[in-house]
Every structure is written in C-alpha cells, then in structure tokens.
C-alpha cells in the first residue's frame, strides 16, 4: 500500500511513458566503445560543474582540474573584475602544462597575479592574454595577441562554476539547466562554507555509482547495520518510498520525507547521536535559512528528508532538510573506472557544539559512503561477465532508467549530427 500518492497513471515510471517499464541493459556500463562515444557525445557537449566560487574568493585565486574524460586539464581563475575564467592548462609556446606543482598530473590551487610557465617563463594575465615572452626578439613574426591561453566556455550559476568543452555550446548554461534546476535559485549555497571534501577512485563505470545514489530502495537493506536494531527493523518493514520524483530535460530529482529521530524512543538512536545531537540527516538543531525557494522540497514534506537533484551528466546537488547540502561528482577515467568526489557544505558553525554536530554528520556520511561504494566493484565485475544482460528496475528506481536512456539519447543525437562529417 503506497504511503504517498502516485501520479494518476499509477506509477512514477508510467507518468513518464518514454521510459518504458521493461528490463534495461547495462551494456553502456561495460563497453569501451560506448565509453568513447560518451566522451565525445556527452562530456564534450554538456555543461560540467567543476566547483564553487567560494574556492576562488579573490582576484587571482585559481585552481586546476584534470578532466581525463575530456582529455585535458583546465585552469579556473578569478580575474581582476571578479569574473571567473577557464582555460586549457597549456602554454602556447611548446605545450608544457602551464600550472602544476611537483606532480604534473595532480591538481593544484593558489593565488597569483599572472601565470608563468615553468619551462621558458612565458607569462599570461588572468584573462589569458600572453603578456611576456622571454627573449621575444629571437622569435619570428611573433604577434603576442594571437597566442593567449585557449579559453574554455565557463559560466556561473548560483555560485556553481560550469565549463563546456564544445567548440560552440548548443545551449547557454541556463537553458541547459532548465526550470527544475533553476527553481533552486535563492537557496543560500554561498553561506555554507564549513566544508568537507572526500575522494575515491572507484572500479566501476561512473553511471553505476550515480545509480547507487539515485535510488533509496537499497537504504533499509544495505545500511541496516548503521542503526540500532529497533530502527533497522522498523525501516526494513516499512521499505522505502519517495513522495516525489521529477524528470526535466536531461536532469532528475528525487525528494524524500524525513524523520525526527530525536522524538523517537532512545533505543531507536545510537548513543553518539544523543551526545552530538546529530546524525546522518545532519545536526538536529536546524539553522534558520528563511523561506526556501519554490523548487526545493516540492512535495512540501514535513518532516522533509532531502532533495537529490541529479544534473546531467555527472553532478548531484543534494539538499538536506536539516539545513545543509552536499555535492557529488563522478569523473570517468575509463569505461570501468572513475573518480568520485563528495563535498559536504554546512553553515559556518557558531560554536564548538555546532562544529561537533557537523563532525558526526560528516563521519556518518563516510561510513554510509563506504558501504555504497563497495557494491560497485561487485556489480561492475559481474555485469562484465555477460551472464545476465537485462535487469529489472522498480518504480523507486525510475531515475536509473532515465540516466541510461538519456545517455543513449545524447549518443544517438551526436551520431546523427556527425554522420558524413
């Protein structure tokens, strides 16, 4: 018996009839050929989030980012006017990587007035203009205006920095995001400056990890041992149902109801949660964030758990009802490996007590994440066996259906447009 009303069609999946209800193939997660197509059709065409503006707060602040799936490294920098620029991280002279520390393939960050190449000291300003060439008179007909850094399309939405590797992006960032995402506008992302960053190298296709975090059907089972037996038992009996799903263009949303664990019997909680007044969902003492934007908590749940906005292709913004948010990035490195980044953002703690509540939420996140990640290698290796080629998805797994379908659709679109070229 459904706890939350479903759409008139009878299910969330049938509400989006283009998705179908049949078994799906995961061929797109085990095929090197499809991975190569994804690189061109998706990662060189879609807007990709590479971080937030708070990480480059002042003029000259920069970071580099190795983006293997697009076969490049970029520099993201705040210029003198406060605008964010992105460039391919390559010197125009002889192709040395322009900004790096000891290890050429490791990312770095810092603040500078200009970029100077380690090799022959060519210099570029914060807008990429070539400003100095060592022994310039030794060159032949060198017009410095023609040899600035190669720009990458870059735009900022609500403090999130996006880049696009297309020669000419087919849509503006705002068009690409669409109304479901832009209706988050006004959420105080910029006030959440207490930040934890996690990273792991995962032996699975990037979409399999996205799948793991875009359904919560697994939660009462995989994570049962995270909670006291009393709680796990109740959670398993109830199963998982989301009150709201939405698909808008290439992007997806699942919204969940919350729990007020602090109103439950003490044996439903772990002792550390009582000590720290916090847990997986975040600190019990919720900050006052004012009125939330229209697009957040769309089912108007009270208590509300979270909204997980899955931005195509590889970016997630997950807003918790308890007044904090996190992001996930899945950066493919091959058809069966990727780098996962999880970043937690809380409001600046006012007191040591606030800070300790955040610490428990962050450590709890990692304990869950380790369990989630461990299923992936197990899944990847067995899908690759080819022993089973079609897999069943239920209505609470609607978003997985959409991601794989959207991936195929971007590839088909790309192939249509490049035929004969």
């Amino acid at each position, binding site marked *: 018996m459904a706890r939350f009303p479903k759409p008139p069609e009878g299910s969330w999946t049938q509400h989006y009839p283009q998705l179908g209800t049949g078994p799906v193939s995961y061929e797109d997660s085990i095929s090197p050929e499809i991975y190569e197509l994804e690189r061109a059709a998706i990662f060189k065409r879609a807007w990709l989030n590479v971080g937030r503006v708070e990480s480059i707060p002042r003029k000259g602040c920069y970071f580099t980012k190795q983006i293997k799936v697009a076969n490049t490294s970029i520099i993201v920098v705040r210029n003198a006017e406060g605008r964010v620029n992105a460039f391919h991280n390559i010197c125009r002279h002889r192709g040395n990587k322009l900004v790096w520390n000891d290890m050429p393939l490791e990312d770095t960050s810092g603040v500078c007035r200009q970029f100077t190449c380690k090799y022959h000291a060519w210099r570029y300003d914060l807008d990429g203009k070539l400003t100095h060439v060592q022994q310039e008179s030794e060159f032949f007909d060198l017009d410095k205006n023609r040899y600035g850094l190669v720009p990458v399309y870059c735009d900022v939405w609500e403090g999130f920095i996006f880049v696009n590797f297309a020669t000419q992006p087919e849509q503006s960032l705002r068009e690409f995001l669409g109304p479901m995402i832009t209706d988050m506008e006004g959420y105080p992302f910029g006030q959440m400056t207490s930040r934890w960053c996690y990273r792991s190298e995962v*032996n699975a296709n990037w979409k399999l990890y996205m799948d793991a975090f875009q359904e919560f059907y697994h939660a009462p089972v995989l994570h049962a041992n995270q909670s006291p037996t009393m709680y796990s038992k109740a959670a398993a009996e109830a199963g998982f149902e989301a009150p709201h799903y939405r698909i808008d263009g290439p992007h997806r949303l699942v919204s969940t109801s919350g729990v007020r664990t602090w109103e439950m019997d003490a044996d439903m909680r772990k*002792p550390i949660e009582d000590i720290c007044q916090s847990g997986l969902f975040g600190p019990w003492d919720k900050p006052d964030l004012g009125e939330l934007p229209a697009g957040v908590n769309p089912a108007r749940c009270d208590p509300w758990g979270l909204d997980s906005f899955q931005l195509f292709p590889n970016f997630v913004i997950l807003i918790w009802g308890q007044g904090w948010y996190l992001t996930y990035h899945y950066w493919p490195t091959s058809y069966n490996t990727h780098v996962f980044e*999880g970043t937690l953002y809380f409001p600046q703690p006012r007191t*040591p007590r606030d800070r300790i509540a955040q610490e428990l939420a962050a*450590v709890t996140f990692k*304990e869950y994440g380790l*369990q989630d990640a461990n299923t992936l*290698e197990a899944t990847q290796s067995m899908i690759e066996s080819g022993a089973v080629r079609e897999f069943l998805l239920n209505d609470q797994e609607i978003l997985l259906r959409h991601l794989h379908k959207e991936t195929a659709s971007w590839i088909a679109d790309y192939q249509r447009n490049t035929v004969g070229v």
Partner: protein
Amino acid sequence: MSAKLPAEFADLEPFSDWCVDSEPQRYQKRMTSSMAQMQAFYDAITPRAEEAIAYCDKFPLDDLPEDVTNLMHLLYSMIMVSFPVERWKQPRVPDSGASSLDCVSEPVP
C-alpha cells in the same frame, strides 16, 4: 610530561594520544587500534562528553586555546571510535572491503 588537556579533564589525559588533528589520521588510528583500546577510550570519554562540549563552548570557535583545541580533537576521535564501538564490533564498517573514501579537506578547527 605536560598536560595536553584542560585540568578539568585530567582524567582523560591517559587517552590524549587520541588528540589527533585531522580526519585521515583519526581514521588511520581507528583502523590500527584494537576494539579493547577503542572501547576503553569510548567508556572513558562518553560520560564526560557533555561536560567537555560545554567547556569548549565557553570559547569562541575561531580562537580556541591549545588545550581546548586538543579537547575538541579528542571529541572528534570519540565520534570516530563510536562507529566500531556502538555498531561494527570491528574497526571497519562491514561490507566495505574494497572501497575507500579519503577525506581530502575538512574545516579547521
């Protein structure tokens, strides 16, 4: 040997090797500690936790004296060991054998 913690928490001084200032080091210490060691630390600190948090709260977070910073780190370690002690009965979360999740930056303090 000089005390790491405020005098009010001298009873926790035997556990001051848990005053560890970063998540990777706290996690590593958890992975390399026995359940008996973590249980002893947990049993000693949890009854004092509320007093310790209240003590830290007397100071502004951005200007904690060194001994109070150490006490905060001890509380972070309490959180770190609470998972094995309260749930796992082993240092590592079950069913996580092949996975890792490295904390590459965190707030200070």
